[in-house]
């Protein structure tokens, strides 16, 4: 992802997760890096759609049904951080 897209991902993660103590802010997790890896792994059409939706959502524009996918991805990426998982009681 580009720098702009990473910044957009950070905003979308804050919006979808709304972290508040005891949860750490998104910037203190590896959520954005994970988001970038997830988008890179997806099929080309998904990549295009998600990247466009990411920028639109970060700008406060409606993104329609892709919203659900963006939220799921944001939740997965934030709550998959090792520190967040430990905080919630999961220690593999």
């Amino acid at each position: 992802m580009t720098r702009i897209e990473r910044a957009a991902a950070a905003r979308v993660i804050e919006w979808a997760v709304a972290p508040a103590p005891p949860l750490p802010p998104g910037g203190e997790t590896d959520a954005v890096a994970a988001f970038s890896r997830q988008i890179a792994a997806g099929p080309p059409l998904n990549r295009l759609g998600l990247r466009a939706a990411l920028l639109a959502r970060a700008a406060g524009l409606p993104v329609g049904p892709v919203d659900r996918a963006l939220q799921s991805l944001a939740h997965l990426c934030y709550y998959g951080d090792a520190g967040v998982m430990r905080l919630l009681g999961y220690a593999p």
Partner: protein
Amino acid sequence: MTRRLLRTEVCVIGSGAGGAPVAKELAAAGVRVALLEEGPWHDPATFDRRPRDMALALYRDGGQLATLGDPPVVVPLGRGIGGTTLVNSGTCFRTPEAVLARWRDELGLDWDLEDCFARVERTIGVAEVPEALAGRNALLVRDGAARLGLSGGFLRRNATGCRGSGVCAFGCPTGAKRHVGASYVEPARAAGATIVTGARVTRVVAHGAGPHEVRARMADGGRLRVLAERVVVACGTLLTPALLRRSGLGGASGQLGRNLSLHPASAARARFDEVVDQWRGVPQSYYVDELAGDGIMLEGIAGPPDQAAMSTPLSGAAHREWMLDARRTASFGVMVCDSARGSVREMPTRPARPLVRYDLHAEDARRFQRGFALLADIWWAAGAREIAVPLAGVPVLRDGDSSPLTRARVRPRDVAAMAFHPLGTARAGADPATSVVGPDLALHGVEGVYVADGSVVPAPPGVNPQVTIMALATRLAFALLGRACPASYEPLIA
């Protein structure tokens, strides 16, 4: 560029639930077999119990392959030796008798699979989940269902020596799950089969009575040609039609790539006063089949917080509140035997990818609504405080009141669904005009080319299909050997 030529008797394309049994049974009988797999061998020592990161390693396209339709449905496929059995929940059902009877009556598929089922179950080590490993998440449903007098039970799975690691869908870290990579591909290799990973098959060139030619591009850029008397295509329901179409095979009936069923599934969540720790124990260990006759199965689904976060149908502060209570939160799934049928084509990308069209049927949306209503009753009976169902427009249920769910008008687009059982895109049938392969899984009108994966399963069986696919593959293997599958008391390897 490296060019390699292999000559063999049978070339099997794909190492999942269909290809692996064929390769093993043939190799064990002394047949020269080459098994081609696009993905790699995965070492269980690298499985770190973290869904977010393991999905990238073990799933095709990071697990993000989705249908185009209303609503979009994510269809996660495994990629590597073992195929999707590497990342499934391990649940094992035989094809229901009534389903086999319907296929016989309607499609001329006179499949007596009894001995094949028994052989598969012994090979992959099928046993019922013991209560001690089921996990509190499942026991809450068992207790709630028992209070309501509903039919259910512990599931049968292929996980000998399971320790309840709780991450079946993200690579069993203890190697307990007997996915077909472990239970069939390893023995096939031991019996002399040539296993080639990193081989993406681009075309099957059928030459009359053979030998046929299989062409593949290797992950390192090289080329592989395999000359084989017989070819078994087992790339999976979403990929097999594309390979056949590209090869100019199987298209005569017009059914190739059509008749796609998915068993769409979805999961609800519930909050309890007690600690559940849904990630402890077998994630899919219990089922409720009270509504199975109406095409609705309730099956466990559970996992670590990141997996649960993805499927919690809330956002922002409400989602956060549920996640902070993750240890007291339960999950359970509803799976629907779908009425809808979709299709799969190939997108002209490099490499080519499947384009899956599927619209959930209104009747199937109603099945989800009924399934979640039953699940809510069960959870209320087990002491749940709140329930969140993944149906848009239905608020979080509280105080034992399911009426916002039962009164809702649920449209297909309101359902947040995934699907783990794509089937039917090269369906079997006796009539070449309406099917792609015959009852013997041979392509109609083509000598020596067979299909052995979920694509031949002509309609959704209503239960997890891996044993069905493995049994059909076993039947094919013994047919190629010219004898019946041995009775259940005979040794697995002659």
